[in-house]
């Protein structure tokens, strides 16, 4: 299985990994500044997890990378693209960047297979048979090859999220963005999604992941970035940031996340 994946680099492999370079990024909604000058580099093939309290700007930062949000200031380079250049070909850039949403956002009027083929045929102009082949391979890759003809409302949350990952992978992205991919899931289906992401990381995909799954971050991430109040408070190796953070805000956040019941009792 692994051999198949790594050998077919154009369709299911991810050897063409792209990096991301973010410089001094600022984003405001009216008077509310959500990102206050963020700089962050992700090397090709690297897995970086963004952690932090809600409202800290993690998701906004992630959405700026594929321009679902338009930054006010700063620069973003993705692969060979200058995302903040007003003349950038957004659609061409987005082909290289897979996005996985918290709410899956599968297309409800298309079955799992068509969810994975629609952009291949419309955007990449692949033939239907080629697109089907790629889609089947990627559904197989997320363990759902047998459910290709199911519609989203016939799938569990975890299955839908895995289809959403297969849909993104079918475009042969060089970078994958995950926006709290397990936050909307029932606890028992979280593991399947995380294991798909773990495999993806092993295959060398560049990944930028907003998550609350500290276990996943510690195990899979090369680096962890802790954000709070629109700034990067601390970043470093996964083990270091999560197990022995330097900053007080990081310590306090992790204490609350890793041991929520303890806090409830002492409060």
């Amino acid at each position, binding site marked *: 299985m692994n051999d198949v994946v790594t050998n077919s680099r154009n369709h299911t492999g991810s050897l063409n990994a792209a990096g991301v370079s973010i410089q001094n990024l600022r984003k405001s909604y009216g008077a509310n500044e959500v990102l206050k000058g963020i700089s962050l580099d992700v090397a090709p093939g690297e897995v970086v997890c963004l952690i932090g309290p809600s409202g800290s700007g993690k998701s906004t930062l992630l959405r700026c990378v*594929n321009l*679902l949000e338009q930054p006010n200031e700063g620069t973003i380079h993705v692969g060979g693209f200058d995302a903040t250049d007003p003349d950038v070909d957004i*659609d*061409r850039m*987005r*082909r290289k*960047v*897979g*996005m996985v*949403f918290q*709410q899956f*956002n*599968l*297309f*409800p*009027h298309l079955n799992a297979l068509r969810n994975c083929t*629609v*952009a291949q045929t*419309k*955007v*990449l102009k692949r033939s239907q048979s080629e697109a089907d082949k790629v889609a089947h391979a990627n559904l197989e890759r997320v363990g759902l090859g047998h459910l290709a003809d199911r519609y*989203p*409302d016939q799938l569990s949350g975890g299955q839908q999220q895995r289809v*959403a990952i297969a*849909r*993104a992978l079918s*475009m042969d992205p060089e970078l994958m963005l995950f926006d709290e991919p397990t936050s909307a899931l029932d606890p028992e289906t979280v593991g399947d999604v995380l294991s798909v992401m773990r495999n993806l990381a092993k295959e060398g995909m560049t990944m930028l992941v907003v998550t609350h799954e500290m276990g996943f971050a510690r195990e899979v991430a090369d680096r962890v970035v802790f954000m709070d109040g629109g700034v990067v408070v601390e970043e470093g190796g996964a083990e270091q940031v999560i197990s022995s953070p330097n900053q007080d805000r990081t310590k306090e956040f992790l204490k609350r996340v890793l041991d929520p019941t303890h806090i409830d009792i002492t409060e």
Partner: protein
Amino acid sequence: MAMTMTARQRARVSLYVQAGIFVVAMAALILATDWKTIGNSVFNFGKIGPMFPDIFVAGLRNTLIYTFLGFIVGLSGGLLLALMKLSSFPLYRWIATGYIEFFRGIPALLVFIAFGYGVPLAFGVSWDVTAVVMVSLGMVAAAYIAETLRAGLQAVPRGQMEAARSLGMPQWQAMVTIVIPQAFRIVLPPLTNEVILLTKDSSLIYVLGLTASQYELTKFGRDGISSLGAGLTPLLVAGAFYLVITIPLSLLARKFESRSARTKR
């Protein structure tokens, strides 16, 4: 204390009273009716034989054709207007809003007169009755359908557009392949109701001069009034034929509604 009733008893008594009022009113209506005259001039089914089979061949057929053509124009125009109304370009929004308010605000009859008599006079052209119905009905329908479609387009979750754009689809392609198909599912019930209204509005063509082969149901019925000597009975028959079209459509709309209630999203 013993006279007070429970809420359930009160509801039951109220129901009896309402039923009683209804029965009395119906009885009064039946007693007051001049059945002999009505029998001759409204329910005179003995003399309507000559209406058949032409009511199928001309009346029903033309009503269906006029409605269909009007709906096609209305649907394409309505989609265009709905997209214009949601456009980020202000001029498009103003044009669409102006159009919609205008055509929803005036009687459809005036539109028929304008296109049937006004346009030929203004431009020195004469055009086919079918074209007049198609344009008049279509332009009025477009205004109503536009609002329905706009609501449907806005009901598609924003994440659908974001997901499509994230896969590299340009705005228009995401609209055509992802958003519009979902919007149509949402608006299928109100759109079906729109067809019902169109079916009835197609009768407004009666203000134009028609040849017998162009008669739709209402005109066919009115023609029968003068030629059959059965009073208003032919109109009653025409009315029944409208129900033959509209009731199945109504059932269809209800079916769409229950289906979309089942499959949420």
